[in-house]
């Protein structure tokens, strides 16, 4: 069929398939990644028309310059205590990730996902939002929980699916949920949280509430239909929502080009919907803070949604099931031109005379100890092992509010099975 249709007087068509610039073994040079100077971008009024964001959707809003100074109109001018708290939260997430990654490697749980290099994205945002704003995260925003003071032991209990797990061992590790901390239950199905966040924001607006919603997805996930449905609802109803796209350059093995990055930016997705779009340096905690604060004010004053693209880099594997050396150059993480978010914020605080290397090293030691102690505590409740930590009959809890006959019957069947097998599985008291 193909060959027959080719007319000799016309040029044959060709299919473009994107290709990342570097593969395993390649030397990395990011010289052509455009990094405009910090402080160069204007900060429009939060009531500005969405159409006026064209420029901001294509450039990179940056606050911290190469010397660690905060410059330009987006400088949120935070006090040293807030800066130190942000730095501490970021370092704590990194220490937590290290420890839990190792726990998975030691066979203590089935799965783990780090956010190394992306700590600023969740943590600076959590500092800029009100504590009762509602978050609809993806799986790399553990920083939201850490900043909001959720207990490390509870997080680990969830990861181990042990006796102390708030989610009763029903969820995959790291798929946390905390209504109390304004942290919506994470789904393994990508981008489903996006329209849900918009719905929550619409409900809040309809009720005359003052709380706004924020949601996060990866750049790869922006291809999902859910993302686009969310954008349409958000713009139509001017939903008070902040739509964050974490562009960390890679989905699993697919680089951002497969989500459309060769043709445009992710912030520019906003423009076609009439939504304000900001593209920011995601490794600059101050830029993340400033953009979130700006978008929150816009939402709170009924000016509608904002899409923020956080330009960052996934410094480690996708998850414990992934081996990034199979598909990307080993040189990428270190060559990444926007540096490391923790190092940059630390440099800033040192430049201000509000921090020093000794205190930082001491803090790292303290945080490592804290995480270790939390782990010890959590492991008293058990590790995943054979999954015998939850009472057997709890398997049927929570399918419905009240258990229908067929589930009761199946529950009985399971208990009979257990009795026949002589397995030592725990039961509810």
């Amino acid at each position: 069929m193909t060959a027959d249709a080719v007319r000799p007087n016309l040029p044959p068509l060709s299919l473009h398939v994107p290709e990342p610039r570097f593969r395993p073994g390649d030397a990395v040079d990011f010289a052509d990644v455009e990094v405009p100077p910090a402080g160069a971008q204007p900060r429009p009024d939060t009531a500005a028309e969405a159409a006026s964001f064209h420029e901001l959707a294509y450039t990179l809003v940056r606050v911290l310059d190469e010397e660690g100074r905060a410059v330009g109109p987006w400088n949120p001018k935070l006090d040293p205590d807030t800066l130190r708290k942000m730095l501490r939260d970021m370092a704590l997430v990194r220490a937590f990730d290290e420890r839990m990654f190792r726990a998975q490697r030691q066979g203590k749980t089935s799965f783990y996902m780090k956010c190394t290099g992306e700590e600023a994205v969740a943590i600076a945002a959590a500092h800029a939002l009100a504590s009762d704003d509602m978050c609809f995260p993806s799986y790399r925003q553990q920083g939201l929980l850490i900043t909001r003071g959720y207990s490390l032991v509870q997080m680990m209990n969830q990861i181990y699916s042990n006796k102390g797990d708030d989610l009763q061992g029903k969820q995959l590790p790291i798929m946390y949920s905390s209504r109390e901390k304004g942290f919506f239950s994470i789904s393994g199905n990508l981008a489903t949280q996006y329209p849900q966040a918009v719905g929550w924001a619409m409900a809040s607006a309809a009720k005359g509430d003052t709380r706004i919603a924020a949601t996060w997805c990866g750049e790869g996930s922006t291809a999902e239909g859910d993302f686009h449905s969310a954008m349409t609802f958000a713009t139509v109803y001017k939903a008070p929502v902040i739509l964050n796209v974490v562009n960390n350059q890679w989905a699993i093995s697919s680089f951002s080009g497969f989500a459309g990055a060769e043709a445009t930016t992710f912030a520019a997705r906003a423009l076609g919907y009439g939504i304000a779009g900001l593209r920011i340096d995601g490794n600059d905690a101050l830029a993340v803070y400033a953009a979130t604060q700006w978008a929150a004010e816009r939402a709170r004053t009924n000016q509608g949604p904002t899409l923020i693209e956080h330009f960052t880099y996934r410094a480690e594997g996708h998850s414990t099931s992934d081996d990034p050396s199979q598909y990307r150059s080993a040189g990428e993480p270190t060559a990444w031109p926007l540096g490391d978010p923790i190092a940059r914020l630390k440099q800033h605080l040192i430049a201000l005379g509000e921090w020093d290397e000794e205190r930082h090293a001491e803090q790292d030691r303290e945080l490592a100890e804290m995480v270790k102690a939390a782990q010890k505590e959590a492991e008293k409740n058990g590790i995943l092992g054979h999954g015998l930590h939850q009472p057997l009959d709890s398997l049927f809890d929570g399918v419905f509010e009240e258990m229908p006959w067929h589930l009761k019957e199946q529950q009985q069947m399971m208990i009979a099975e257990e009795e026949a097998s002589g397995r030592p599985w725990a039961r509810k008291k």
Partner: protein
Amino acid sequence: MNMIQAINSAMDVMMDRDPSVIVMGEDVGYFGGVFRATAGLQAKYGKTRVFDTPITECGIIGVAIGMGAYGLRPVPEIQFADYIYPALDQLVSEAARLRYRSAGQFTAPLTVRSPFGGGIFGGQTHSQSPEGIFTHVSGVKTVIPSTPYDAKGLLIAAIEDNDPVIFFEPKRIYNGPFNGHWDRPAENWSKHPGGEVPEGYYRIDLGKAAIVRPGEALTILAYGTMVHVVQATVEELGIDAEIIDLRTLVPLDIETIEESVRKTGRCMVVHEATRTSGFGAELASLVQERCFYHLEAPVERVTGFDTPYPHSLEWAYFPGPVRIGQALKKILKD
């Protein structure tokens, strides 16, 4: 070969034979898929025949339908069967009906590959068995292999088929057969006859079940991982069961089933998927309709429970040897 290699080999053979076969999906290109099922294919056949896609299952299937309408034979991968739901509209309303609604002007010759099933601590979103959703839809075929040998032969037949085929790969047995005892050492395919896989082309026609163990006491209908769990259980309990591996659910090999049930007079169906409205209900109903006067006991169903797939209590959920053994006792009682 293990099952991944067999599946890889099927695609390799078909891409080599037929330039219209193309492979697409999340991470299937350079990297060769998160389970490595497409490893090496892009290097061999080039980027325009084996490529990564954006993360949009609905887009993947919709685009594959368009490619099929052009005259290609797309083999899209959905990374986990749990992620097939966003593509459901394109599969159910479009691919499944294209031939019917266009009176044959257009067809959708896709083979959608997707790893499915539990037993790997994958939690709710990496463990489901959605085959019953597709058997309920008119116009798609549903295929589920239980050995590397079958996987290759069936996948080749699926790719050659002019209708849309959903090809579910039981990921629990990618590396070896599984007897249902999670606490015993894993076996690998090298010791199993189903692990002997020829390099070249061969096909196993869709719609033909396999009698994996002849017997007289009862007929057990199973597919995928459950074939092995059933086989091990029956051997451990010393029961003379006839075990039928269905291999394709639609079209179903009703003759083999009928013949067997008429002979044994008892029938049990086993699947991992949830019970209510599962494919087991269809099987029980068919057997009841066609073999009622030969039955000496009600048809027994052994299935997963009607809950989402739990993470920590995975082994309480999984229909293992104990649940199967209890059902066997019940059905063989009188």
